[in-house]
C-alpha cells in the first residue's frame, strides 16, 4: 500500500468518487444530528457509554474470562487467537471439520482486518459476502471504503455493471435487462443470495457486542442477511475483537441507544439478533466464538491510545471528517478508514511502515470527530500522541513485548508523515473546515500547553489562542463575498 498522501491524491482526482462521498457523508451526518437531538439525555448516555468501555478495558482479562465461562455454559465453544494467522487457522479448521466448502458471511470488519476470505480460499473454501454493499465490493474485486456503507464510492450505474458482469461467476446471474434502479438492484441481490442462504450449512459473522455476564452475542443490521446467516446454518462461527465485550446485560441499554442513532441515524436498526450459546432446535447446533487480539492488547498497553478500543464502529467520525470526505476510504489502507482508522490502524499494526506512519498526519485536527463520537474518544489527542511516536520513537508494545522504537528522523516514515501533513495543507477545503471547527470549539482547546510533541515548545511559550474567527472567514467577510477566494 502507498502512504496516505499518495492514495489520497489519486482519490482527489476522481471527481465522481468525491461527488458520491460528499453526498453520502453530508446526508448521513444531517440525519444523525436529528436522531441524536431526539434524546435529551444524549450527553449522559455518551458519558455512560465511555465509562462502561473504560471499566471493561481496565479489567479486560476479568471480563474475557467471565465471557468465556458464560458462553461455554450456554453450549458454545470459545477459541482465542493472538493474531490474524491464528484466527484464520482456527476458522479454517472449524469449517473443514464440518465437511463443507462454502460459507455465508455477515458483514464484519474484523474478518476484513485478518484477511479471512483469502485464507479460506487458500484452503478451498468459498466465502460469500451477503451484505448488499459487501456483495458489491466482493463482486467488484474491490475493497470497502466506509465502515457502514462499504460501497459508498460506487454509484448505481457502476453497481448495475458489476452485477451484470460478475454475478454469474459466483452463482445465479443477474436478471436480464437489469436497470440501475436501487430497488431493482436490491432485488437482484435477493435472488442471487436466496439459495445460498437456504442451503448454507456454515455461517461466519462478527458481533457488535458480547455480554460477559450472560455470554450473549449481539448483531445489529438492516437487511436480514445477518439473521439468515446467524440462524439458518447448522454451524455458526463468530470472530470478534476482544474489545467488543461489555460487562452486563443492562449495559446494552446504553449501546443500543448510542449505536443506531450514531450510525444509520435511525432510532433503531431494522434487525437486532441476540443469542446465547445454542438453543435446542432454534438456530445453529454448534456455535464457535473466536476471540481476536491481533494488536488490540498492544493498543491497550498505551494509556493514551487505549481509548481507541472504546470504538463501537458507528462511522459517525467518517461522515464529519473533511479529510475523509476528500481522500476517500481506500487511502487509509486498512479495514478501518477515516479518523478512527487513523488512530486504530497505527496502533494495531505499529508505525513502522510508511503508510501506517503517515496515518496520524491524515487529519486537520479539527475535532469534529470527537464531537460526534458516541463514546467520546478524543481522536485528536490520540493523533497528536501517535505523531509524537512517529517522530520521536519511544517505548511501545509490539505483539505483547515492550520495545523501544527509534525516532523516524530521516527515515522514510518521516517523509511519509510530512507528505501527509503537506497534503492536508495543500487542500484548502480541508484546512478551512478544520479551522472553522477549531474556532467554534476553541473553549475545549488546551489553554497554554500543547499535548504531545508540542509540549516542550509550550513549556517556555504561551500557546497563541485560537482566534474567534478563522482568518479566511474574516477576510471573506471584511473584503466582500467572493473576492477573498
Amino acid at each position, binding site marked *: 500500500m502507498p502512504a496516505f498522501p499518495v492514495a489520497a491524491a489519486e482519490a482527489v482526482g476522481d471527481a465522481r468518487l468525491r461527488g458520491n462521498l460528499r453526498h453520502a457523508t453530508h446526508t448521513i451526518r444531517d440525519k444523525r444530528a436529528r436522531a441524536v437531538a431526539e434524546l435529551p439525555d444524549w450527553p449522559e448516555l455518551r458519558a455512560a457509554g465511555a465509562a462502561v468501555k473504560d471499566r471493561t478495558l481496565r479489567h479486560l482479562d476479568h471480563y474475557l474470562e467471565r465471557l468465556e465461562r458464560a458462553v461455554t455454559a450456554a453450549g458454545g465453544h470459545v477459541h482465542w487467537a493472538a493474531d490474524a494467522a491464528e484466527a484464520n487457522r482456527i476458522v479454517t479448521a472449524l469449517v473443514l471439520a464440518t465437511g463443507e466448502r462454502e460459507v455465508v458471511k455477515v458483514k464484519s470488519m474484523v474478518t476484513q482486518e485478518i484477511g479471512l476470505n483469502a485464507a479460506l480460499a487458500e484452503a478451498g473454501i468459498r466465502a460469500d459476502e451477503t451484505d448488499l454493499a459487501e456483495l458489491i465490493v466482493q463482486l467488484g474485486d474491490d475493497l470497502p471504503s466506509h465502515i457502514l456503507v462499504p460501497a459508498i464510492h460506487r454509484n448505481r450505474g457502476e453497481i448495475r455493471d458489476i452485477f451484470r458482469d460478475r454475478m454469474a461467476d459466483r452463482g445465479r446471474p443477474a436478471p436480464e435487462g437489469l436497470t440501475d434502479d436501487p430497488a431493482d438492484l436490491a432485488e437482484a441481490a435477493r435472488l442471487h443470495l436466496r439459495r445460498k442462504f437456504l442451503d448454507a450449512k456454515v455461517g461466519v459473522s462478527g458481533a457488535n457486542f458480547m455480554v460477559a455476564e450472560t455470554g450473549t452475542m449481539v448483531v445489529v443490521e438492516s437487511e436480514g442477511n445477518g439473521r439468515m446467516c446467524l440462524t439458518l446454518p447448522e454451524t455458526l462461527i463468530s470472530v470478534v475483537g476482544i474489545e467488543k465485550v461489555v460487562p452486563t446485560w443492562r449495559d446494552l441499554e446504553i449501546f443500543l441507544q448510542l449505536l443506531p442513532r450514531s450510525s444509520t441515524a435511525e432510532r433503531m436498526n431494522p434487525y437486532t439478533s441476540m443469542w446465547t450459546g445454542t438453543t435446542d432446535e432454534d438456530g445453529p447446533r454448534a456455535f464457535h466464538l473466536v476471540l481476536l487480539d491481533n494488536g488490540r492488547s498492544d493498543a491497550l498497553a498505551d494509556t493514551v491510545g487505549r481509548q481507541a478500543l472504546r470504538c463501537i464502529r458507528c462511522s459517525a467520525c467518517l461522515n464529519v471528517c473533511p479529510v475523509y470526505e476528500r481522500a476517500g476510504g481506500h487511502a487509509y489502507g486498512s479495514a478501518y478508514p477515516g479518523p478512527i482508522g487513523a488512530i486504530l490502524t497505527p496502533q494495531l499494526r505499529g508505525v513502522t511502515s510508511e503508510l501506517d506512519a503517515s496515518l496520524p498526519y491524515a487529519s486537520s485536527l479539527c475535532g469534529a470527530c470527537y464531537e460526534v463520537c458516541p463514546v467520546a474518544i478524543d481522536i485528536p489527542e490520540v493523533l497528536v500522541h501517535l505523531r509524537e511516536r512517529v517522530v520521536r520513537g519511544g517505548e511501545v508494545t509490539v*505483539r*505483547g513485548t515492550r520495545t523501544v522504537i527509534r525516532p523516524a528522523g530521516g527515515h522514510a516514515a518521516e517523509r511519509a508523515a510530512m507528505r501527509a501533513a503537506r497534503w492536508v495543507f495543500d487542500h484548502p477545503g480541508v484546512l478551512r473546515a478544520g479551522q472553522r471547527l477549531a474556532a467554534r470549539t476553541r473553549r475545549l482547546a488546551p489553554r497554554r500547553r500543547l499535548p504531545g510533541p508540542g509540549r516542550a515548545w509550550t513549556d517556555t511559550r504561551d500557546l497563541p489562542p485560537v482566534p474567534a474567527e478563522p482568518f479566511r472567514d474574516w477576510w471573506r467577510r471584511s473584503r466582500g463575498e467572493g473576492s477573498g477566494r
Partner: protein
Amino acid sequence: MSGREEVLRRVRRALADVPAGETPADVPVPRDYLRGHSPADPVETLAERLMDYRAVVRRTDGAGLPALIARLLAARGTRTVVVPAGLPAGWLSAADGVERVPDSAGQTPHDLDAVDSVVTGCAVAIAETGTIVLDGGPGQGRRRVTLVPDHHVCVVRVPDQVVGSVPGALERLVPSRPLTWISGPSATSDIELSRVEGVHGPRTLEVILVSM
C-alpha cells in the same frame, strides 16, 4: 503457549498501569441518563414510529382480531401460513381456506420459503424506537419463521406489552432466550443511500395493536 494463555498474558501486561487492588466497581459508571423519555401515549408513539419505518399498523380489540387477521391474509392472497406453537387458537379461527403449517424443527429453510405468511405474537414492544421483540416464547416460533416468509403479521397486546424505551425492554427480557428485535421491514440504503424495503427478510411487516 496456547492462544488463550498468550492473549490473557498480553492483556494483563498491557494493564500494568491499573493498580493491583483496583476492581471493576472502582471504575465509576455514571448512569444518570433517563430510564425512558416518557412518551405521553406509548401506544400512539409505537404506532407512529412503526409507520415511520414503513410497517403497516392496524388496530382492533380481542373480538375483532380473528376477522382482521383473516382479512390481512386474504388481501395478500395468502394460501399457506406458518403457525408457531402456542399461538392462541382463536387468532386464526376466521382464516378459512388458508392452510396451516405448524412451525416444526423438521422444516427446512426451503420448506419455509414456500410459505406465504407467518402470524406471531411478541414478547415486548418499544414505543420510542418502533420495535417489536420476539423471544421464542409461546406464539412466536423459531427465529427463522419470521425471517423466510415474505409477509409477517405480528400481534401486540396493548398497552400491557408496550414499554416506553430500550432500558424498559431489556428489563423485561431474558438474555438466555434467542431474541429478535424488529423495527420495520427489512431494508437497505447501500445504493446511493436510497432506502429500499425488503432485501432478505419479509418485505411486508403488519403490526396489529390489540387492546385487551
